[in-house]
Protein backbone atom coordinates (compact mmCIF):
# COMPACT_ATOMS: atom_id res chain seq x y z
CA UNK A 1 0.00 0.00 0.00
CA UNK A 2 1.18 3.56 -0.65
CA UNK A 3 1.00 6.52 1.74
CA UNK A 4 -2.45 7.59 0.62
CA UNK A 5 -3.90 4.10 1.00
CA UNK A 6 -2.33 3.74 4.41
CA UNK A 7 -3.73 7.11 5.45
CA UNK A 8 -7.18 5.83 4.57
CA UNK A 9 -6.50 2.62 6.48
CA UNK A 10 -5.48 4.66 9.55
CA UNK A 11 -8.64 6.68 9.15
CA UNK A 12 -10.65 3.46 9.14
CA UNK A 13 -9.02 2.47 12.41
CA UNK A 14 -7.00 -0.50 11.15
CA UNK A 15 -4.59 -1.42 13.91
CA UNK A 16 -1.41 -2.05 11.96
CA UNK A 17 -1.85 0.79 9.48
CA UNK A 18 -0.19 3.51 11.54
CA UNK A 19 2.99 1.51 12.11
CA UNK A 20 3.16 0.58 8.44
CA UNK A 21 2.63 4.22 7.48
CA UNK A 22 5.34 5.37 9.84
CA UNK A 23 7.78 2.79 8.49
CA UNK A 24 7.04 3.98 4.97
CA UNK A 25 7.71 7.65 5.70
CA UNK A 26 10.50 7.11 8.21
CA UNK A 27 13.28 8.05 5.80
CA UNK A 28 11.45 11.23 4.82
CA UNK A 29 10.98 12.05 8.48
CA UNK A 30 14.63 11.53 9.28
CA UNK A 31 15.58 13.79 6.39
CA UNK A 32 13.18 16.44 7.70
CA UNK A 33 14.52 16.08 11.23
CA UNK A 34 18.12 16.28 10.05
CA UNK A 35 17.32 19.41 8.09
CA UNK A 36 15.60 20.93 11.08
CA UNK A 37 18.43 20.12 13.43
CA UNK A 38 20.92 21.70 11.07
CA UNK A 39 19.47 25.00 12.25
CA UNK A 40 21.54 24.45 15.38
CA UNK A 41 24.99 23.88 13.90
CA UNK A 42 26.99 24.77 16.94
CA UNK A 43 26.34 21.35 18.39
CA UNK A 44 27.42 18.05 16.94
CA UNK A 45 25.34 15.82 19.21
CA UNK A 46 21.93 16.48 17.74
CA UNK A 47 20.00 13.32 17.10
CA UNK A 48 17.45 13.17 14.32
CA UNK A 49 16.31 9.70 15.32
CA UNK A 50 15.28 10.93 18.76
CA UNK A 51 13.32 13.78 17.23
CA UNK A 52 11.53 11.46 14.82
CA UNK A 53 10.65 9.04 17.59
CA UNK A 54 9.27 11.83 19.74
CA UNK A 55 7.16 13.01 16.82
CA UNK A 56 5.92 9.45 16.34
CA UNK A 57 4.93 9.14 19.99
CA UNK A 58 3.02 12.40 19.85
CA UNK A 59 1.14 11.30 16.76
CA UNK A 60 0.40 7.79 17.96
CA UNK A 61 -1.13 9.18 21.16
CA UNK A 62 -3.68 11.18 19.19
CA UNK A 63 -7.12 9.77 19.76
CA UNK A 64 -8.43 10.81 16.39
CA UNK A 65 -6.13 10.27 13.46
CA UNK A 66 -7.52 11.68 10.28
CA UNK A 67 -5.31 12.86 7.46
CA UNK A 68 -6.61 13.85 4.08
CA UNK A 69 -3.41 13.28 2.13
CA UNK A 70 0.36 13.20 2.25
CA UNK A 71 0.61 17.02 2.35
CA UNK A 72 -1.76 17.12 5.30
CA UNK A 73 0.27 14.50 7.14
CA UNK A 74 3.58 16.27 6.57
CA UNK A 75 2.02 19.57 7.55
CA UNK A 76 0.99 18.02 10.84
CA UNK A 77 4.40 16.48 11.36
CA UNK A 78 6.07 19.82 10.81
CA UNK A 79 3.88 21.34 13.51
CA UNK A 80 4.78 18.50 15.87
CA UNK A 81 8.49 18.96 15.23
CA UNK A 82 8.21 22.71 15.72
CA UNK A 83 6.39 22.10 18.99
CA UNK A 84 9.08 19.70 20.18
CA UNK A 85 11.86 22.19 19.53
CA UNK A 86 9.93 25.02 21.20
CA UNK A 87 9.11 22.89 24.23
CA UNK A 88 12.78 22.14 24.63
CA UNK A 89 13.68 25.84 24.34
CA UNK A 90 11.06 26.73 26.95
CA UNK A 91 12.50 24.15 29.32
CA UNK A 92 15.94 25.58 28.72
CA UNK A 93 14.67 29.03 29.67
CA UNK A 94 12.91 27.65 32.76
CA UNK A 95 16.06 25.89 33.90
CA UNK A 96 18.00 29.14 33.64
CA UNK A 97 15.42 30.88 35.79
CA UNK A 98 15.72 28.17 38.41
CA UNK A 99 12.28 26.77 37.76
CA UNK A 100 13.45 23.23 38.29
CA UNK A 101 11.98 22.05 34.98
CA UNK A 102 12.28 18.32 34.52
CA UNK A 103 14.47 17.10 31.66
CA UNK A 104 12.64 16.01 28.52
CA UNK A 105 13.37 12.79 26.63
CA UNK A 106 15.03 14.93 23.99
CA UNK A 107 17.38 16.67 26.39
CA UNK A 108 20.19 14.29 25.65
CA UNK A 109 19.69 14.65 21.93
CA UNK A 110 19.09 18.38 21.64
CA UNK A 111 21.74 20.70 22.95
CA UNK A 112 21.67 24.34 22.10
CA UNK A 113 22.79 27.33 24.08
CA UNK A 114 20.64 29.62 26.20
CA UNK A 115 21.06 32.36 23.59
CA UNK A 116 19.92 30.01 20.84
CA UNK A 117 16.94 28.92 22.90
CA UNK A 118 15.90 32.55 23.37
CA UNK A 119 16.32 33.24 19.67
CA UNK A 120 14.21 30.24 18.70
CA UNK A 121 11.48 31.28 21.13
CA UNK A 122 11.49 34.84 19.79
CA UNK A 123 11.16 33.47 16.27
CA UNK A 124 8.33 31.18 17.29
CA UNK A 125 6.37 34.03 18.86
CA UNK A 126 6.89 36.30 15.85
CA UNK A 127 5.92 33.47 13.52
CA UNK A 128 2.68 32.91 15.40
CA UNK A 129 1.84 36.62 14.98
CA UNK A 130 2.66 36.50 11.28
CA UNK A 131 0.49 33.41 10.77
CA UNK A 132 -2.46 35.16 12.41
CA UNK A 133 -2.82 37.56 9.47
CA UNK A 134 -0.95 35.76 6.69
CA UNK A 135 -1.28 32.01 7.10
CA UNK A 136 0.59 31.09 3.93
CA UNK A 137 3.67 33.13 4.81
CA UNK A 138 3.66 31.48 8.22
CA UNK A 139 3.47 28.04 6.67
CA UNK A 140 6.34 28.81 4.28
CA UNK A 141 8.55 29.80 7.22
CA UNK A 142 7.53 26.77 9.26
CA UNK A 143 8.32 24.36 6.45
CA UNK A 144 11.59 26.09 5.59
CA UNK A 145 12.96 26.84 9.04
CA UNK A 146 11.50 24.15 11.26
CA UNK A 147 11.35 21.33 8.71
CA UNK A 148 14.14 22.32 6.35
CA UNK A 149 12.26 21.77 3.10
CA UNK A 150 13.65 23.38 -0.04
CA UNK A 151 11.67 26.06 -1.82
CA UNK A 152 10.74 23.54 -4.49
CA UNK A 153 9.47 21.07 -1.88
CA UNK A 154 7.50 23.81 -0.12
CA UNK A 155 5.89 24.74 -3.43
CA UNK A 156 4.79 21.13 -3.91
CA UNK A 157 3.53 20.86 -0.34
CA UNK A 158 1.49 24.07 -0.54
CA UNK A 159 0.57 23.75 -4.21
CA UNK A 160 2.12 27.09 -5.17
CA UNK A 161 4.93 27.96 -7.54
CA UNK A 162 8.57 27.97 -6.48
CA UNK A 163 8.72 31.64 -7.46
CA UNK A 164 5.87 32.43 -5.09
CA UNK A 165 7.62 30.54 -2.31
CA UNK A 166 10.75 32.58 -2.93
CA UNK A 167 8.85 35.86 -2.70
CA UNK A 168 6.92 34.73 0.38
CA UNK A 169 10.11 33.71 2.15
CA UNK A 170 11.79 37.03 1.41
CA UNK A 171 8.84 39.02 2.76
CA UNK A 172 8.41 36.78 5.80
CA UNK A 173 12.12 36.89 6.58
CA UNK A 174 12.15 40.71 6.55
CA UNK A 175 8.97 40.98 8.61
CA UNK A 176 10.15 38.48 11.21
CA UNK A 177 13.54 40.17 11.48
CA UNK A 178 11.83 43.51 12.03
CA UNK A 179 9.57 42.01 14.69
CA UNK A 180 12.48 40.33 16.42
CA UNK A 181 14.15 43.69 16.70
CA UNK A 182 17.26 42.85 14.79
CA UNK A 183 16.72 45.31 11.98
Amino acid at each position, binding site marked *: MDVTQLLHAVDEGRDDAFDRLFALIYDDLRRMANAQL*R*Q*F*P*AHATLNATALVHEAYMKLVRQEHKHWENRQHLFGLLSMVMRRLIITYAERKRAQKRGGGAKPLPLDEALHF*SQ*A*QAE*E*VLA*LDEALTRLSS*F*DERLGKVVELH*FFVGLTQKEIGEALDISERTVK*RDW*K*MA*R*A*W*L*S*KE*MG*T*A
Partner: protein
Amino acid sequence: MTPHRWSRLRSLFNELADSTDHVRTTRIAEEHLDAILHDELRALLRAHDTAAPILDDEPPGHRLNGGAPHKR
Protein backbone atom coordinates in the same frame (compact mmCIF):
# COMPACT_ATOMS: atom_id res chain seq x y z
CA MET B 1 -3.24 46.01 9.67
CA THR B 2 -6.12 45.36 7.30
CA PRO B 3 -5.76 42.68 4.61
CA HIS B 4 -5.86 45.42 1.97
CA ARG B 5 -3.00 47.39 3.54
CA TRP B 6 -0.99 44.22 4.09
CA SER B 7 -1.52 43.30 0.46
CA ARG B 8 -0.28 46.73 -0.68
CA LEU B 9 2.72 46.45 1.57
CA ARG B 10 3.60 42.99 0.26
CA SER B 11 3.20 44.08 -3.32
CA LEU B 12 5.51 47.08 -2.95
CA PHE B 13 8.02 45.15 -0.90
CA ASN B 14 8.22 42.50 -3.60
CA GLU B 15 8.77 45.18 -6.18
CA LEU B 16 11.40 47.06 -4.23
CA ALA B 17 13.25 44.49 -2.13
CA ASP B 18 15.92 43.76 -4.68
CA SER B 19 16.09 47.21 -6.18
CA THR B 20 19.36 49.03 -5.90
CA ASP B 21 17.80 52.24 -7.14
CA HIS B 22 17.13 53.88 -3.80
CA VAL B 23 15.90 57.12 -5.32
CA ARG B 24 13.22 55.24 -7.22
CA THR B 25 12.46 53.13 -4.16
CA THR B 26 11.83 56.20 -2.04
CA ARG B 27 9.76 57.88 -4.73
CA ILE B 28 7.51 54.88 -5.27
CA ALA B 29 7.02 54.44 -1.56
CA GLU B 30 6.08 58.09 -1.09
CA GLU B 31 3.72 58.06 -4.06
CA HIS B 32 1.87 54.91 -3.10
CA LEU B 33 1.73 54.83 0.64
CA ASP B 34 0.44 56.85 3.50
CA ALA B 35 2.86 57.79 6.24
CA ILE B 36 2.32 54.68 8.37
CA LEU B 37 2.72 52.24 5.52
CA HIS B 38 5.64 54.24 4.20
CA ASP B 39 7.45 53.82 7.52
CA GLU B 40 6.50 50.15 7.63
CA LEU B 41 7.87 49.58 4.14
CA ARG B 42 11.12 51.34 4.95
CA ALA B 43 11.51 49.21 8.06
CA LEU B 44 10.90 46.05 6.05
CA LEU B 45 13.43 47.04 3.40
CA ARG B 46 15.94 47.77 6.15
CA ALA B 47 15.19 44.36 7.68
CA HIS B 48 15.65 42.79 4.26
CA ASP B 49 19.22 44.09 4.29
CA THR B 50 20.00 43.08 7.86
CA ALA B 51 17.92 39.97 8.49
CA ALA B 52 18.16 38.17 11.79
CA PRO B 53 21.06 35.68 11.73
CA ILE B 54 18.71 32.87 12.69
CA LEU B 55 16.86 33.45 9.42
CA ASP B 56 19.95 33.80 7.31
CA ASP B 57 20.18 31.34 4.44
CA GLU B 58 23.91 30.94 4.83
CA PRO B 59 25.27 27.36 4.90
CA PRO B 60 25.19 25.55 8.24
CA GLY B 61 27.88 26.88 10.52
CA HIS B 62 27.11 30.49 9.71
CA ARG B 63 23.72 30.75 11.35
CA LEU B 64 22.60 31.78 14.79
CA ASN B 65 25.37 33.25 16.89
CA GLY B 66 27.89 32.89 14.13
CA GLY B 67 25.72 34.34 11.39
CA ALA B 68 26.85 37.56 9.83
CA PRO B 69 24.23 40.13 8.87
CA HIS B 70 23.05 39.74 5.32
CA LYS B 71 24.41 42.45 3.06
CA ARG B 72 23.12 43.41 -0.30
